[in-house]
């Protein structure tokens, strides 16, 4: 399974959650598979998906899933101690770890070599860390959502992207649409 297969497999699990999606192929693939007003797509700024997700989870009560990547976490490794030390039980960090920088041409990451992101997350103090094979991701996500505990899921999958167009939606519209959805739920 590659990232796009993992995304397809978790779509039935994501029913009412707010989603922050990583820059590049992850956002483009999710947008092509199932665009929702509850999705926030990153168009730039490599690395900050998990930070945006944590900030959102801390700010409001709805459940938040940050769909991040191994390369992005490596870019912003400081995010894991911040997540560990600011527990938001409505936050799930799903790291789709395909061992490569997918959007830039599948260059290998260190997460595909000696570095274990689940071990790093645990060492940083994250309490609920699950590493799973791609085919089990949907089940693990379901369990994490049911647990009502902040969870980091590291999904090990194969490297590869599907050919989908870039997102042409205006960033201000992406944010406004998403904030309207968040606001609708608070009212």
């Amino acid at each position, binding site marked *: 399974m590659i990232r796009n297969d993992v995304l397809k497999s978790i779509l039935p699990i994501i029913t009412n959650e707010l989603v922050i999606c990583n820059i590049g192929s992850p956002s483009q693939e999710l947008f092509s598979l199932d665009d929702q007003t509850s999705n926030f797509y990153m168009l730039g700024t490599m*690395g900050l998906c998990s930070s945006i997700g944590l*900030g959102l989870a801390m*700010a409001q009560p709805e459940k938040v899933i940050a769909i991040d990547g191994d390369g992005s976490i490596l870019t*912003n490794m400081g995010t894991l101690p*911040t997540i560990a030390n600011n527990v938001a039980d409505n936050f799930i960090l799903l790291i789709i770890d395909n061992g490569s920088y997918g959007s830039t041409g599948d260059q290998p990451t260190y997460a595909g070599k000696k570095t274990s992101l689940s071990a790093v997350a645990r060492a940083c103090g994250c309490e609920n860390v699950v590493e799973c094979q791609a085919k089990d991701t949907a089940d693990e996500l379901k369990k994490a959502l049911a647990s009502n505990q902040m969870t980091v899921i590291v999904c090990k999958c194969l490297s590869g992207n599907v050919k989908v167009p870039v997102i042409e939606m205006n960033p201000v519209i992406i944010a406004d649409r998403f904030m309207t959805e968040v606001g609708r739920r608070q009212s």
Partner: protein
Amino acid sequence: MASNISERIVDDMIAHGIDFVTSVPCKQLAGVIEYVGNNDKVMHVPSNKEDEGMGLCAGAYMGGKRPCIIMQNTAIGVTVNTLATLIQYYQFPLPMLISYRGELGEPVACQVEMALHTKALLDQLHIPTFHFHKKGDEAELGDILKYTQMSKKPTAILTDAFFWRTA
């Protein structure tokens, strides 16, 4: 009535709706950060790097908070991409309370190097910039925060050593 300038600045931020603060420490801002951390009217999430902090602020803003980032001017070098492609691109308002190191009174020579680039970088990024240099300059803070929300832009509030010594 808060007793010192650090507390007055934080109280003013809170009075103008700031309820989420992320910070990366600076000696000059130690009092502000401590007071923010002990204040239950504002959520304080220390970050490890300023671009990470801006990500937290972007998420908090979309969740209905009014964020602020507290950092040193050296962070302008760290956050150029984040300011352009996240904060400005999506039009997230973000006041940046910045310790302006490397100005008159600076004891550490290396700090001068980024001070030389600070205003030029902010200018290049088209970031509205305000400089607190003398006692009383902080009176503008409330208007700056209103202006930040109104314009939906990042704004820079540079606070130098002379300000902190005399205010």
